Structures are given as C-alpha cells and as structure tokens.
C-alpha cells in the first residue's frame, strides 16, 4: 500500500478493491502520517465507504472536503488533516 504525492500538500490513496472497514482504516493511518494542512484524496469502489468514512475520519478530527463520483463505480473522498 502506497500513498502518492500529487502536488505540494496533496496526496492520493487508492483503496479500490477493499471492503469495509479497510478503506477507512488505510485512510486514517495515512492521515496519521501526513502533516497538518495536508489533503488526502481517497479512491474507493466501495460505495459503503462514501457513507461511513466521512463519519469515521471526522471523529478523529479530520475534515471531509468532498465526496464525489469520479466515474462508474469509483468515488473520491477528499479529507483535510
């Protein structure tokens, strides 16, 4: 599992193929490694994660900036640390 740096302070985590709770867990652990002010984009094909991940990461103090459909059966959840 890797996190890619897209640009300064913007990172990408691809968790397609993972079912709950793993997209949220990978996202939380990645956020734990980033710095305050960084943004993490999470790609998932698990629609349930679009519902649950925002609650999960906000409980940890992160801010969800967007949940959007990228293409058929792929969603992007954007989270700020």
């Amino acid at each position, binding site marked *: *599992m*890797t*996190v*890619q*740096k*897209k640009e300064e302070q913007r*990172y*990408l985590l691809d968790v397609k193929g*993972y*079912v*709950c*709770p*793993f997209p*949220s*867990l*990978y996202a*939380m*652990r*990645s956020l*734990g*490694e980033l710095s305050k002010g960084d943004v993490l984009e999470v790609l998932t*094909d*698990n*629609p*349930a994660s679009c*519902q*649950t*991940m925002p*609650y*999960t990461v906000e*409980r*940890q103090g992160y801010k969800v900036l967007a949940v959007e459909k990228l293409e058929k*059966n792929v969603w992007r959840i954007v989270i700020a640390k």
Partner: protein
Amino acid sequence: MEVVQIAETSFAGLESFIGRYSLGYERGEGSQHFLRVKIPNGIVTSTQLRGIAQLSDRLGRGYAELTDRQDVQLHWIRDEDAIEAFSQLRELGFTTDMCGQGYPEARYGDVRNIVGCPVAGLARDELIDASPLVLQMTRFYSGNRDFLDLPRKFKISLSGCAVNCVKPEIHDLSFVAARKPDGEVGFTAFVGGGLGSPPMMAKPLGVFLKPSEVFEVARAVIELFRDHGSRETKPRARFKWMVEAWGIDRLRGAVEEKLGRSLEPITLNAWVSGGDHSGLQAQKQPGRFYVTLPSLGGILPSDRMRAVADLADKYGSGELRLSTSQKPIIVNIPEEHVPSLLTELEALGFSLNASSLRWRTIACAGNLCGKAPDHVKARALQLVEHLESRLSEDLKRLDVTVYLSGCPNGCGHHPVAGIGLQSIQLKVGDELRPGYNIYLGGRLGPRAAFGRLVKQRAEADQVRLFVEKILKAYLRQRRDGESFSDYCERHSVEELEALIEQPFAVEEPLSARRDAVRP
C-alpha cells in the same frame, strides 16, 4: 507522480485480516456497521460465547442476534474499533462474513457461513453426522483468495439431519443425507436455491455422493460458478440464475467433467425438510439431552448470552449449538440435571412451556440493516404475544411456521413459511406507515412451494388480527392430520383472503368446533 512511501508500520496488522474479516454496511438505528461472526455448523463453546458477549459489551452496545445462518451478529461497530474486534475474534477462532455485497458490481462474493444441523452428532434420528465436513469446508474457504471474488455471495448447507432443519431448498448448494435401498448412507445435492426476489427452490442434482466426495463436488460447483457465473449485472449474478440458464443436466455434466468421472445417479422421491429441534430432546448418547431455547427473533443481549453460556457450563458440557431458526441450544445435559436447568431457564425467560411459535418464528434484522419500513423483530414479538393471548393452549400443538422479512430479499425466509410476512412501506394520506404483504401456505420438501400472496398492503398493526383469523379458521376447519400448508393449498387465494378479512365470530371453544367438522 511522486510516490511517497508511508511507513510500513503505519499499516501493520491490517493485511492479516483482509479476506477473513470485514464489517457489513447498514443504516438503521444509528448503526453503520454490523459484524457477522460465522459459527460453522453453529458449534460454539461457552468460552467463545462469553468472548462474543464481551465484544458486544465493549463495542456493540451489549446487543447481539443469532441469525438464521448460525452467525452471531453485532451492531454499531465503528471502523476504528474493527481491528480490536477482529483480533479478539481471531483469538476465539472465528472469522466473519465478507461484505462484498456493498459493491455495485457482480464481484467479491464469498462463501457464507456453511450451515449444518445444529444437533449434528447428537440427534437420535440423524442419518449421518455431517459437521466434520462442514468444518473441513469452512477451513478451506476461509480467507482462500481463489474464492473471494465470486460473482456474488454463495450459500451452502450440509446436513445429515433427518428433518433437514437447514432448509436445503433455499441455498445455492445443499448436501442432504440420503440412504440408498442397500442401506448405504451418503448425500445428494440440491442446487440453485435462493429467497431473494424472485425466490427459487433448489433443484435436485440427481446424484448420490459418498461422504468423501462432498468436498470435491462442492469445490467443482463453486469453481464453475466463479468461472462461468454471469457478472453482467449484480441482480442476475446469483448462482440460481446460472442453474436456470444451464439446467441440471448441463451443470451435472460440467461437474463430472471437472471431476473426470461420472457420479452415481439417484432419484430422491421423499424427504422431510424444514423440521426443527424444539424444546427438550433426548440425544443419541444415552442419558444425555439437549434443549433448544425459545429466543424469539434470535435476540440475545450480552447478559443473556453470558447467562446461557454459564448454564451450559453448569448443566452441560460447556458446549452450545446455534440453530438455523435463531435459537441457542444447550447440549450434553445429563438427565439428572434437566429439572434444575429447566427451572433456571424459566427464571431467565426461556420457559419450555412457551407456545410453539416461540420456536417456529423467524424475524430478520431489518430495523438495523435499514431496508425494512418496520421493526421486524419487535413486530414478531407483538404478533406472537397476541396469538398466545388469543389462542393459548391451541398454539402449543400448532405446527405452523411464521417468518418475517423486512424486504423482498427474504432474510427472514418469509417465502417458505406457512405464514410469511414481508414488510412494505404504506402511504396513508400524507403519512408513511409500516405495512406487510401476507403470504400463506409456503412449504418445503417434495411438494415445496412458495407461499401465495393473499393480502397485500396490510397495515402493520392489523397483521396480528389477520393471522389470528386464519389460524382460527385452520383450527376449526382442518381435516384430520391436515397441515397448515395443506389447508391453504385446498383453498383459493380469494377464499383465504375472505378468511382473513372475515369479521371476528362470536368466540366458541376451538376444540369443540374442530371436533364438529371432523369427518
């Protein structure tokens, strides 16, 4: 794009759970995730049950349910607590269902908990103890990456039970004990059942299998499904559609081709199905008994779960079984301990003098999954309490199943019930209210049939009255030995509808009226 390597330690410990553990998504009563613990063949120790109770206390609000696939289901599990839950389950020796059903495409299907007769190895009249095969197959499929991307989930039953309590007709693949005319005992297979809309009954594959052949035949069938099942659309990806498309002969031929040999043909003319193991029963082991507790709807909060586990230690061997009708079973009770155990069970609210409906009612967890317009388990309790108050002693002898589902997916098995209730949303004026469609006369076995839709869109609060009327009509009018489903079969839908719509008659003793109509 630059790749930033997040320290491996950040993800440490996650990988080992993937493929064996997951949380399911739900949206009822503030729960986002359920945790469905697979209990293969429903065999569990008191220590394991207490461990699950502890997990429920710590992470699941002290609530738990037994499912009709011999799982224990917890709710309100949070993502961030999942690893703690998975770790504890791994220590206890359990895995969970995978939640691939959350995907919009036809993929990530897994082999669900393999169900077996809960009193395997104990029941006096079983043909064969199939539980070792269930456990062998469970070990093979758990976390096996070759079988984690089936077109959809895959449900198996495997039982040597004389009454086929696992309902073999409703699974994707079932192995049913069979005895040949020469006395040899083995299994035959059923394929392509499923209760999701539209429900389909599994069909006999027409083969006799020695116990040693079951594993490889199951594997061949599942591989055929994995490699040839439709992945075009999710609703059409269940195995039953492949069986419909292929037909039995082609499927059997493909299995034989995979095995490299022909299978022995057999025609099964008669079998019992959908029976149960209610109440106190003698085991095949002399002087030993098991008792099935009447836990309506399978609700077993952690304190009661712990209490039941303690009773299994105190009066039995510390082993319990979970039935496919959402009931815990305490086993291996020496005869001399039975009276004391029954007294303690009574105090715990599990009276064996309860009506038959306490054992024969199944209700899904629709209030928590979020798909049901009604709280189905609460409705089941309301219904049973109402019928108990109106029918009293007559209910004790009644052999009728009442199954409630919150939606057409049929997790509560409503299509095969004598009285099947499926929750729907009603719009009355501007108000949304829970309602039910009422199906009557479902049955399993050689004359398997789905219940017929007799009443659509009944208001939820009225359902108990409709059910009371049809049961009273049956009690008054049944012929000698006539089952409820037979009674329904000899009436048209219109006649049955008239019976449940009729005004309440002036009450008369049911027994007297039943005698009056006996030929």
